[in-house]
């Protein structure tokens, strides 16, 4: 009488098969590997690099298992950690600064599992070790910068249209124009109204004070959102470029909330170096080309970035640096040739105007400034040869163009070659620019040994907790207890499988969540068994089993829904590690309901279902 239909068994079988399959990738060990990418982030790894690496490794007879191209990088897999380190040294020595080499541990998930989306659970930084930064983009400064540009352009416009401006200024992020007469005031007002409509809505909020002939202008919410999105998006691109320089195998650079950016660098052990590269500003310099009258003391020789053999002399004085660049994009000039449009902020514009006004016809150079690491083979005090890394600054010319007119906040560079070369130049210009300043508002660094320690402690807690619960349940509920224990183990596998499938991140509190689930998951079975015991007092075993399961169900459901509410809220308000706890807890609640009700029932049915039992030991 207590029998499941064939569909119910199939459903259970299907869920278990799915859970086990996706939990499987976690059983495969990781394999030491290195990822090789060109130092120049604009260049993606290619067959040439692949052949080079093969050649070098074959020549030095280092064993490697596999070498292939993947996502702009070349991945080399090794059978041992020694080989991995040895070949990193060899390759770095051979190729020096041409490439960035990152150490990594590749999952060895078999191809068939990979094809169906199988992958091991991602580890949070508290388990893998690494650095987590939270940066905040200063939107107010971006807004102030925009307003300064706007002020400048209206000053110009009003002057051209002969409006009588008494004074103009920016106060509290508002543009403030005071006019001498009503006529000028009216003309300015209609000009504002004409300019205000944008693609997404009105850009300005205009406050009119006709009695004082004063107009106040501030950005509307729509415009502010655009400024913010642009600034954050731009800084995101810049940060990605900078992070690439660090040679981290799986970096994360993501926007968080309205004006923050999360940077996570698993495996990075030196937060100071990472911070220096991420937090650096200006890495572009605009300088005039030195001419015959420039004294040798005031000029410097630089190489061109794309051509090692040509050089040029630039003046030592920097006209404008990269942090003044607010935008750069490509376009076409009158004759249909590519050009790069550059926008500077107010201060940059003024400096550019001053520098170019007496120098039309001279050439203006753009220097790209990079912080680089040089690897050198040195002999240490013990006579071993080791690679020593020193960082240095390298400056190369990315553009040298003739000044055609006095330049201001926006100007263009023409004659930049093909559209692709133009967009590369624009990218480089933007890469050096932060649309708005950023500051570190959170930093968490976990050393690699602490990560490993956390994993060990976490696993030990799960094992010990599990062992105690399993022993207790077996003694207390006998056969039913064993069924509950098997459900508990299935539950752990399902949690692992779902986490792997969803790509959820496992953290130390996440492990704690799993431990807690182990303790609480048996609750559903305890409820059912307690109920069966009660029912047994007045009913025969088969009816007692049936009623025990069905009556306990509603209670289990209500109790779990409320815990789920708490877990979901935790997910929404929590950050990082705590989110990990909310994830494992939520998944655990759902899977435990399935295993405790369906799986335990299936086992009980298989054991007692068809038998005529007189006495039930529970």
């Amino acid at each position, binding site marked *: 009488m207590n029998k499941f239909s064939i569909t119910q068994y199939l459903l259970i079988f299907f869920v278990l098969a799915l859970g086990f399959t996706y939990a499987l990738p976690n059983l495969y060990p990781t394999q030491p590997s290195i990822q090789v990418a060109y130092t120049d982030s604009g260049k993606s790894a290619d067959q040439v690099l692949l052949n080079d690496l093969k050649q070098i490794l074959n020549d030095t007879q280092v064993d490697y298992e596999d070498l292939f191209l993947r996502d702009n990088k070349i991945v080399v897999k090794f059978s041992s950690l020694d080989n991995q380190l040895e070949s990193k040294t060899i390759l770095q020595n051979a190729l020096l600064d041409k490439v960035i080499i990152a150490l990594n541990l590749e999952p060895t998930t078999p191809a068939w599992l990979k094809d169906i989306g199988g992958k091991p659970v991602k580890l949070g930084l508290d388990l893998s070790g690494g650095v987590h930064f939270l940066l905040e983009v200063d939107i107010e400064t971006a807004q102030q910068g925009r307003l300064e540009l706007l002020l400048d352009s209206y000053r110009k416009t009003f002057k051209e249209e002969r409006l009588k401006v008494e004074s103009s200024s920016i106060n509290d992020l508002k543009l403030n124009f005071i006019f001498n007469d009503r006529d000028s005031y009216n003309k300015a007002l209609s000009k504002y109204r004409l300019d205000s409509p944008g693609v997404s809505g009105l850009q300005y909020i205009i406050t009119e004070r006709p009695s004082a002939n004063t107009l106040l202008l501030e950005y509307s919410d729509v415009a502010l959102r655009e400024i913010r999105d642009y600034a954050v998006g731009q800084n995101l691109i810049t940060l990605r470029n900078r992070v690439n320089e660090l040679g981290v195998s799986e970096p994360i650079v993501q926007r968080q909330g309205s004006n923050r950016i999360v940077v996570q660098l698993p495996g990075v052990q030196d937060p100071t170096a990472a911070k220096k590269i991420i937090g650096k500003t200006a890495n572009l310099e605009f300088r005039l080309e030195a001419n015959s009258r420039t004294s040798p003391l005031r000029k410097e020789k630089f190489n061109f970035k794309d051509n090692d053999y040509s050089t040029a002399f630039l003046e030592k004085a920097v006209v404008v640096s990269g942090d003044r660049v607010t935008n750069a994009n490509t376009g076409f000039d009158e004759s249909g040739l590519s050009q790069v449009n550059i926008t500077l902020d107010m201060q940059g514009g003024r400096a550019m105007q001053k520098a170019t006004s007496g120098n039309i016809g001279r050439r203006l150079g753009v220097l790209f400034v990079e912080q680089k690491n040089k690897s050198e083979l040195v002999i240490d005090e013990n006579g071993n040869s080791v690679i020593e890394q020193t960082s240095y600054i390298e400056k190369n010319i990315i553009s040298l163009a003739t000044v055609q007119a006095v330049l201001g906040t926006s100007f263009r560079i023409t004659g930049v070659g093909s559209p692709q070369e133009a967009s590369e130049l624009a990218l480089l210009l933007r890469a050096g620019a932060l649309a708005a300043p950023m500051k570190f508002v959170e930093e968490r*660094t976990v050393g690699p040994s602490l990560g490993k320690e956390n994993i060990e402690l976490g696993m030990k807690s799960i094992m010990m907790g599990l062992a105690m619960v399993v022993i207790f349940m077996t003694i207390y509920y006998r056969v039913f207890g064993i069924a509950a224990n098997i459900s508990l183990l299935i539950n752990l596998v399902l949690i692992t499988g779902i986490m792997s499938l969803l790509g959820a991140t496992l953290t130390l509190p996440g492990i704690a969540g799993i431990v807690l689930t182990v303790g609480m998951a048996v609750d559903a079975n305890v409820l059912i068994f307690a109920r069966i015991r009660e029912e047994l007092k007045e009913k025969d075993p088969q009816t007692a089993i049936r009623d025990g399961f069905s009556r306990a169900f509603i209670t289990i459901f209500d109790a779990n829904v409320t815990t789920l*509410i708490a877990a979901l809220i935790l997910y929404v308000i929590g950050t990082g590690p*705590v989110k990990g706890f909310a994830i494992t807890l939520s998944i655990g609640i759902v899977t435990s309901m399935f295993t405790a009700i369906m799986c335990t029932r299936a086992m009980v049915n298989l054991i007692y279902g068809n038998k005529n039992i007189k006495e039930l030991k529970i």
Partner: protein
Amino acid sequence: MDIRFQFMKYRKIAGLISIFLFSISILSLTFRGLSLGLDFSGGTLIEVAYESPVELESIRNTLIDNGYEDSQVVNFGTNLDVLIKVADQNGNSSIGESVYSLLTEQGFKGELKRVEFVGPQVGAELRDQGGLGMLVALFMILMYVAFRFQYKFALGAVTALGHDVVIILGLFSIFGWDFDLTVLAALLAVIGYSLNDTIVVSDRIRENFRTQREMQPKNMIDLSLNQTLGRTVVTSLTTLLVLFALFIFGGEMIKGFSLALILGVLVGTYSSIYVVANMLMSLTLTQDDLAIPEPEGADFEELP
């Protein structure tokens, strides 16, 4: 059916104990406050592992000499592990590096285990979010229980949750344990757990009120508590088993978390027996409260 333990006989004493613990907690929270962890207070934390035991006093002096007056130096787990906490200095994010280089100058040999910096505004946000999240959780649970059961149960459930949360916070305040994000997470898990218990008890009370119509409310509640007692004890026991495993083997970083949960399970088990039932008794739950409403229009069907 026999009633082995007459829980409701002691309800007045239990009520007094609850009120006492609750008041002490409120007093301590008001006057002593919580010792906020880095997540909420903002500041910098550095954990280093020395190769040989070190005098904490000398580290303290070095820090004070270099302008970090508002700092704490303690051992973390073993006497080789040292945890240094420096209070926030206007959001300065490079204190970690400065302190580390100070230690190195002082002759530190060992390993830098972790550095954490939380800016003041992030700390304040986490604080606000945490408090808000707690309130939202309580409110949503109140709604769910009111919808599934009845408002008297909902009031009982939320009183029990408030009781548990305040007493655990109170204990953290009285003993000066660090209150950080993981403890907050544990507190929310306690809400879930305690509610689990409460619902199981409430569910049985509801069922008995509907089936055992001739019993006194007091006996009815005692009967329900006795019926669910076995389950309550077993579940608390298994949960406590794993939590002790976590507390003992889980390492220092998770100690506060497991401690909060252990306390939560104990207080939560107690409150699901006494606080909820006490509330229901005080609100004089009657059978009418739980009558299944007859479908409207049922009377009319018999009309010709």
